[in-house]
């Protein structure tokens, strides 16, 4: 009865009260400002560059070649002429990639705020894409607006349900959402394979030899407002994504549900004591996150992909990039958007389409992106290090006045 080891955490239960993920990341935000994320990015690219160097390539040329493919030069007023036109096309591609990244990043960020780690963005995105391609390729006669709205709504719902499973399991049984969402990722993948493989239930009606879905009917495609639709111009989905970021901010900072999510994220015990239903919050938060990721899936399908092949499902890594996006953006609306832009640019710059294989093999570059993505997350998680570096000597450390004998005097963050 009186032997009290420090509050246990770990895979099966909730976090120790004073060190939830949300708490530490918020500490990070307050103390690091904009510098910490910048530092993180620089450090990650630096280490990535080291890998490039050690394996016998030139990191400067590599990064330069990648940058040229991103289209970000279009933002610089000194880029003109043919360069500008090409940069415009590249920037459209980058923004096309940024769109779902914003949404999936928010899907991870909101979960983090509530103290949950949503690694299932990939599965939730996939489920949304599957539903989107199915609804989008059916109902050929439906009016455009209705068709688009219906598709997006159902895709969002699918993603919400997919994540909701993990949320429900966490709420009801304490099952750690890290493992359940990862499992759901794989289940979604195999579900997709099953549906679109040869002779699968949703496989293409007109191409029996290709494991691909039906095409989305033209009435459901999203309108392209910048660039040439034939060359995959930028569709209006970007505005939906930005709107979602605004909604996220309002939800988090101005709504009762967001308040509850934050309270639960910082201190589930105190939240429970004040009447907040912690389990229900978990389910709602995961559902919201899944919905955002599912919406991202529908954005891509209706915006530029227009069909889904088993290969697409296999190769897609959007959900995982979302984790790096959210963490780099410190789980804020603005940060997520900026981080999504960064990673969208990175993925575009390293794509087969844009990267000159003579300078650097795109497959290598793809893996380099993954390494950088991992490093970003790694450095963000070392908040202690960065915070310590930034704040040494600048702040007073207060010993808690609860001097119970034997209690550790901890540095209060």
């Amino acid at each position, binding site marked *: 009865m009186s032997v009290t*080891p*420090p*509050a*246990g*955490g*770990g*895979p*099966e239960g909730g976090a120790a009260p004073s060190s939830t*993920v949300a708490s*530490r990341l918020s500490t990070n935000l307050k103390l690091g400002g904009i510098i910490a994320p910048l530092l993180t990015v620089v450090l990650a690219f630096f280490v990535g560059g080291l*890998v490039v160097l050690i*394996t016998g390539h030139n990191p400067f040329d590599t990064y330069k070649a990648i940058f040229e493919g991103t289209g970000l030069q279009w933002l610089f007023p000194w880029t003109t002429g043919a360069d500008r036109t090409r940069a415009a096309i590249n920037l459209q591609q980058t923004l096309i990639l940024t769109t779902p990244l914003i949404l999936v990043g928010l899907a991870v960020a909101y979960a983090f705020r509530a103290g949950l*780690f949503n*690694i299932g963005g990939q599965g939730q995105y996939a489920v949304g894409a599957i539903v989107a391609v199915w609804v989008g390729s059916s109902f050929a006669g439906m009016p455009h607006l209705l068709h688009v709205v219906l598709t997006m709504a159902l895709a969002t719902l699918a993603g919400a349900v997919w994540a909701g499973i993990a949320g*429900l*399991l966490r*709420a*009801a*049984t*304490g*099952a750690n959402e890290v*493992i*359940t969402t*990862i*499992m*759901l*990722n*794989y*289940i979604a993948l*195999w*579900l997709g394979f*099953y549906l679109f493989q040869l*002779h*699968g239930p949703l496989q293409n009606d007109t191409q029996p030899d290709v494991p691909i879905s039906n095409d989305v009917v033209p009435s459901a495609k999203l309108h392209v407002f910048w660039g040439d639709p034939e060359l995959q111009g930028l569709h209006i989905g970007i505005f939906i994504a930005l709107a979602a970021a605004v909604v996220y901010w309002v939800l988090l900072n101005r709504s009762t549900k967001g308040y509850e999510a934050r309270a639960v994220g910082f201190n589930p015990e105190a939240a429970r004591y004040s009447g907040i*239903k912690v*389990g*229900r919050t978990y389910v709602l938060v995961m559902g919201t996150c899944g919905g955002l990721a599912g919406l991202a899936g529908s954005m891509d399908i209706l915006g530029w992909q227009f069909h889904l092949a088993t290969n697409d499902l296999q190769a897609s890594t959007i959900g995982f990039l979302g*984790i*790096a996006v959210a963490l780099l953006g410190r789980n804020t609306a603005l940060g997520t958007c900026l981080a999504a832009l960064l990673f969208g640019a990175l993925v575009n710059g390293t794509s087969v389409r844009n990267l000159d294989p003579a300078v650097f*093999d795109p*497959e*290598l570059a*793809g*893996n*380099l992106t*993954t*390494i950088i*993505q*991992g*490093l970003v*997350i*790694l450095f963000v*998680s*070392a*908040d*202690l*290090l960065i915070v310590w570096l930034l704040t040494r000597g600048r702040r007073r450390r207060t010993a808690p006045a609860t001097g119970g004998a034997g209690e*550790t*005097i*901890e540095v209060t963050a």
Partner: protein
Amino acid sequence: MSSSTTQRLAGALRPQRGAEPTPGERPPREWWMGVGGIVVAAVAFLITLPPFEVRSIVPSIVLTLVAVGLGAIAARAGHVRVGWGAIVLAIACLAGAYGATQSGVGHLEVVVSWGALCAAMLRYATPLTFAALGGLVSERSGVVNIALEGMMLMGAFFGAYGADKTDSWFLGLVIGVLAGMALAAVHAVWAVTLRSDQIVAGTALNFVALGLTGYLYIDTYGNQGTPDNLPAVPEVHLPTDSLGFIGDAISDLNLLVWLSLIAVVVVWVLVFRTARGLRLRSVGENPRAAETVGIGVYRTRYVAVIISGGLAALGGAFLSIGFVHSFTQNMTAGRGFIALAALIFGRWRPGGLLAATLLFGFSSALAQRLPEFSANLATLFQALPYVLTLIAVAGVVGRSTPPAADGVPYVREGK
């Protein structure tokens, strides 16, 4: 006043307090009846398979009813897990029996060739076993190791690469293990010294390993892939071919398969029967208490995490140079997480973890053979290990508690 829906659901899913036999206590009769129900349910399915091949569904129905009855009695008496386990299993087995009686005997004999199935089960289980043992060592010291997947992948690539470059499977294994340990060392620094969130750091390392192995793979082998003559870990040939299906199963297993089984015993002895193991577990349960008796918490955790990396890498190396004889990007495909689930399922004990990995291995083995029936359904069946993991982690089958200080970074007082 009503309680919330999730609370009620939680109540239904959680076993009742005081209803499970406590360790050491003799389980009452109803609990045994529940176990009997599980056995009868399994029999209901087994009789329709080779070598019995009963073609009528009637005996299975009868046995299923018996199993359900036994399960209900157990559940009514408060033994929710065995009781409901028997009932659910009975229904599943009846479905299986139905499927078996409906399909051709020829099909059945191809798929359910027990000897081959068991051998495959052991092969599929081996990487999981190694990784799960690694997870056990790490978590028993209080550090959550989500990066088992990444460490496995490091072992897989560097095992293949090392074997290729040194032309020796043994040195390949050594290099693979060292690579896994290197990744684990980074995890240790982040988890123990920097006290970062262990799950976030572990996830990060998974990506780093994925990208790094993929990058090095493309850079080294480009489009051709790993060479066909990759040195392979040898198989152990036992003259037991004629000793029934078990003899058949074990007659040609890879060396690492045997090693994994030996490792289970070794880890058990080391962690639960030696003084070092006692110290390891004390660090995972109450690190401050361990510190006060002079045990170095940081050092113990570092060693534990690095060992776990080595074990996981061994599992990955088996995949590349013992099983598939090549390396492909992301070839571990989530096995590290399934291993983690096996660990939880096995209640952080080597025996339980082995049972779990064998179960997952069996489901993978079965999934390989199902295209015999229906190629499309077989695809869906590939998701089974992940579904099983989901069920396992949800604690429906077994709710277990991790080491008390698992996942909590340790702060040395006063320094």
